[in-house]
């Protein structure tokens, strides 16, 4: 009687130990947690993207960037089993040349390796028609059009000798929520290896400038066909760093 009790105790201790080891291994080998930090690393091809430095695109355009700002919103987890878990109030304004804003903390989310992280590049229609919002969506952040209501999803500004504009400037203010010119785009990445709950996403601006002719397309400030052309490329700029 007494013996068996002792054995039982040992067994349960063993199980606990095994679980602990498994859990540890799990957190090292497989991501699983209740928060997720996303870090966005900006590049121009293989070079780290810096403000006001010069880069050359595939089209031989020399380029300098002064501002890159965009909204990442509506984060969701899609589990391997096909369940969607929405993260409320997950709206972030990222400014590429501001280190702090490139780090996004998603709290109170559960996920495991193989799940997908879904989000919008830009602001959805509902938020575009909900009046004055706060925080990252406050119109005082300079990402809102005034003469025609709606958020600017993506702002890219800089200069290039290829642009025959005033001071060789290019300005892309990409937005619009009404069909057929809705410019918000969807992105999903599979969570493979979020060590310490950190997911690193590379942002390569060269992908956009390799695929447009900036001598012709260099000023997009309103919703429309040209904004759509650029919006369609934007999801390709983001990729998971594995």
């Amino acid at each position: 009687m007494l013996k068996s009790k002792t054995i039982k105790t040992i067994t349960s201790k063993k199980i606990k130990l095994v679980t602990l080891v498994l859990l540890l291994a799990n957190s090292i080998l497989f991501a699983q947690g209740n928060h997720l930090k996303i870090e966005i690393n900006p590049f121009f091809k293989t070079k780290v993207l810096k403000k006001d430095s010069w880069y050359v695109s595939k089209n031989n355009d020399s380029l300098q960037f002064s501002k890159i700002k965009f909204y990442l919103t509506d984060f969701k987890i899609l589990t391997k089993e096909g369940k969607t878990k929405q993260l409320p109030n997950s709206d972030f304004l990222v400014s590429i040349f501001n280190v702090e804003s490139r780090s996004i903390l998603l709290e109170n989310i559960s996920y495991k390796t193989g799940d997908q992280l879904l989000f919008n590049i830009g602001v959805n229609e509902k938020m575009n028609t909900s009046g004055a919002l706060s925080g990252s969506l406050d119109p005082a952040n300079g990402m809102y059009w005034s003469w025609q209501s709606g958020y600017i999803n993506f702002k890219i500004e800089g200069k290039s000798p290829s642009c025959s504009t005033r001071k060789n400037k290019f300005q892309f203010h990409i937005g619009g929520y009404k069909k057929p010119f809705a410019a918000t785009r969807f992105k999903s990445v599979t969570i493979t290896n979020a060590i310490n709950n950190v997911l690193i996403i590379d942002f390569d601006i060269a992908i956009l400038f390799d695929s447009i002719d900036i001598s012709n397309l260099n000023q997009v400030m309103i919703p429309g066909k040209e904004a759509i052309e650029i919006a369609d490329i934007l999801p390709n700029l983001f990729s998971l760093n594995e």
Partner: protein
Amino acid sequence: MSFIIGIFICLGFVLVKNEEVFFEYPEYWPKPVYNFSKLSMTEEEFQLGRHLFYDPLLSRDHTISCASCHLQATGFTHVDHDLSHGIEGRIGTRNSISIMNLAWNTSFMWDGGVNHIEVQSLAPISSENEMDTSLAIIVEKLNKSEKYNSLFQKAYQDSLVTGQKILLALTQFVVMLNSYNSKYDKYIRNELGGKFTEQEKIGLKIFRNNCASCHKEPLFSSNDFKNNGLNVDSTLNDFGRMMVTKKPEDSLKFKVPTLRNIQFTQPFMHDGRFETLQEVINHYTSEVQHSPTLANELQEQIILTHKEKVDLLVFLRTLTDQKFLYNKRFSYPRETQTN
């Protein structure tokens, strides 16, 4: 002991309850379109909005306030200017529109480019021909102002100024600018002061037969956009709603404005081309230009005799709401409290 009293005094301040304001309108009116959920509906928020509405600090060089182009005594519009002007005398491209009964509007501006009352004020704030500044700059200015820190504290229990709070406070003020006490309203409600003369009754009948399909009672507007047959002013080339929607079928369409208080809201039309109501009526009876997008309601000529035109004009004056135009709650905020 004094420490405990101190705590109570502190608590007393924290627990000050803001005075509620109520949005009132005649029960037979349609339900407002605006959802008031973001507003605190307090006297403090209303007063903050009122101060902002009358404050030239909202313009780049501190010379123009909302009230510069939206004067209460003229139905909150800019009288005597065909096109409204902003800072440094810069002239815009449109006639400022009157502000009243905004909770029933589904869109704002002559072209409907603004989709929500809470973000409407961003348009004049950032237009270079109007206030030529930005919400961010106003946030910065207000955060440095003791007066506004105190007003924001009272309204929101937090002195920090944000863009959203500015926009909501302005909304809280303008959404209360409601006009429903004209002679016409009293006539409809069978109230004292609402006895129509024979001429006014005939005028109302003429109005209902010829104008009310677009200028719908009881708001005397509709949320539609119409081409009302004005020829294009080649100095402006303003194609209205098409510039927002990019649809050719919206060419030359503009918002159907309210006719309430029209006795005082001259000049008329989106570009203020008519100075008198006689000119407006003459336009609709004999000058309508036919084009592919012309409103259905104007396809057939409106024929009115001289006497009928006069009767119609007499009726339009019954839409004047003195109580609204001279309501002290809506006027320039006198400094009643010292902060």
